[in-house]
């Protein structure tokens, strides 16, 4: 019975293209999450110790080959997912923790404060994300927290803008006026009446931002502003691998690159599907 229900639900999701994308994205994400959690069991070698001769092409024993120091590429790709997830998680949480309350409060108060903060946020927003992150990362230096911080700064305006515009419409809703009429204080109105109504759109922004954050992190590491080696990191491995690409050692760039593409793709598909599910207005338009 249950299995037939699941089949029916999946068929329903498969009915339109976004449903298919959502499921593919979900599977990709689950695969990467499992990879990150069980990395020590899945990786055949240690990612930070040489495990064979250097620059071995893919073969049995080293299915993705080895790099110039003899590290197993497969093991480094698996452990790299941990770094990608943790930096993305820390960065988006910092961005959300600042952007969401700021958007709520400023959007609710409105007026001059609103114009001022929105102006500041918009000027941050106009910077190309990666360049801003590079500038901040260059100031702060290497390390997981520093990288997360510099990525977070880039995404604060995204949260701020989404939340503020939602709050601006919701604050004129009758139930918010009703809350004022019963004598609720502004913090109570914000947390009990406004926040629950803006949260669904936040979740979508959150999952989209994680994908972006992973890309930015890889970009920073590629430029040498990221994690200090030899900690396994896709971006760093990519930049190291491109030194050997003229020697036809393709496996050094293809596999970490593929990992980045798949995880970002997974998050994008997932958030796209989530958006359709949580935001019924989009569905109607199609």
């Amino acid at each position, binding site marked *: 019975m249950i299995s037939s229900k699941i089949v029916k639900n999946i068929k329903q999701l498969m009915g339109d293209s976004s449903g298919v994308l959502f499921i593919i994205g979900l599977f990709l994400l689950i695969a990467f999450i499992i990879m990150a959690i069980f990395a020590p069991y899945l990786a055949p070698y240690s990612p930070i110790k040489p495990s064979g001769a250097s620059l071995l092409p893919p073969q049995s024993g080293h299915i993705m080959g080895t790099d110039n120091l003899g590290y197993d590429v497969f093991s480094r790709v698996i452990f790299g997912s941990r770094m990608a997830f943790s930096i993305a998680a820390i960065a988006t949480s910092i961005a959300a923790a600042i952007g969401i309350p700021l958007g709520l409060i400023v959007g609710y108060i409105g007026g001059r404060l609103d114009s001022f903060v929105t102006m500041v946020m918009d000027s941050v927003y106009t910077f190309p994300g990666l360049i801003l992150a590079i500038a901040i990362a260059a100031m702060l230096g290497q390390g997981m927290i520093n990288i997360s911080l510099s990525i977070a700064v880039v995404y604060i305006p995204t949260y701020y803008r989404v939340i503020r515009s939602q709050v601006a419409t919701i604050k004129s*809703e*009758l*139930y918010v*006026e*009703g*809350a*004022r*009429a*019963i*004598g*609720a*204080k502004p913090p*109570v109105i914000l947390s*009990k*009446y406004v926040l*629950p*109504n803006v949260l669904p759109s936040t979740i979508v922004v959150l999952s989209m931002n994680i994908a972006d954050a992973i890309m930015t992190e890889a970009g920073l590491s590629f430029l040498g502003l990221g994690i200090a080696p030899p900690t396994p990191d896709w971006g760093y491995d990519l930049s190291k691998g491109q030194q050997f690409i003229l020697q036809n050692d393709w496996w050094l760039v293809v596999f970490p690159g593929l990992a980045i593409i798949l995880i970002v793709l997974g998050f994008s598909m997932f958030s796209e599907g989530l958006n359709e599910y949580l935001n019924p207005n989009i569905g109607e338009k199609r």
Partner: protein
Amino acid sequence: MVNDSNVVVVKNLKKYFLLKIPWLESFSLKEKPSVKAVDGLSFSIKKGEALGLVGESGSGKTTVGRSIIRLIEPTNGEIVINDEDIMSLKKEKLRKARRNFQIIFQDPIASLNPYMSIGKSVMHPLEIHDIGNRKQRKEMVLELFEKVNLIPAEGFFNRYPKQLSGGQRQRVVIARAIITNPKFIVSDEATAMLDVSVRSQVLKLMIKIKEEYNLAFLFITHDLASAKYICEKIAVMYLGKIVEIADKTELFDHPLHPYTRILMGAIPIPDPTLKREKIIPAGEIPSPTNMPSGCRFRTRCPYAKKECGDIDMSLMEIEKGHLSACPFIR
């Protein structure tokens, strides 16, 4: 039971909305252009009495309802509710005083938070004003649910607004309005969006609650028939001014102001043989940014004459307790 003590006294209430103009122009203008939504309203409501405020769209009824309880700040005027000078209250005091006066909005769908169960919605005023402990609060809510006919109360407590019908939602809103035991309730077109069968139930509920709590009630509506059903006294409003105010029976038997007569003509009477004088007003309600001089109704009034441009529309007592703003018809 109408008692002699006034619960609500409003004197010369004004609400002007400033219009946005280019800032350069603002230097050349002496008086900033504004919409006079409410322009010098005075009335009082006694304990256990319902005053109907009737007028067509754009007459400023809703603005009156919201400014009396300072949901929007009045430009000027005096408001006393329950012997408390509302206009002089500071933020925190005003917030605390809100348990004494409540409002029921027109749209029952939009006036409830979709993400809060209706039990919690009704309980929230008690939490805000720190009334009772947790268990007592829930008991009070359940008791009230039964009173407003949301039965079984326990079953309704955890439901969400979208699971209820329009009439049920309006009953929830009414329950929320009376849970803090207020002295005064504004009902802003509370029945306008309900269909006819549900409307009479909700009207009956409001009468029951008014009697039981001995409330002063301001019943804002565009529908004279509902006002007749629920109110003891009726005030007719046109473009920010009260044009006539009288006891219900007096007003219906001897309407004085031409505008009131026109509104009366719009009430359908279920008697096809009845012939009555039908006056159709000319044109539409004028823009409140560009008000006619003198009597504001003169542009549409069938009895308008030259002198109407000079009168100031102040209410005169034509008969005892019956005030009208038209000096020519008595």
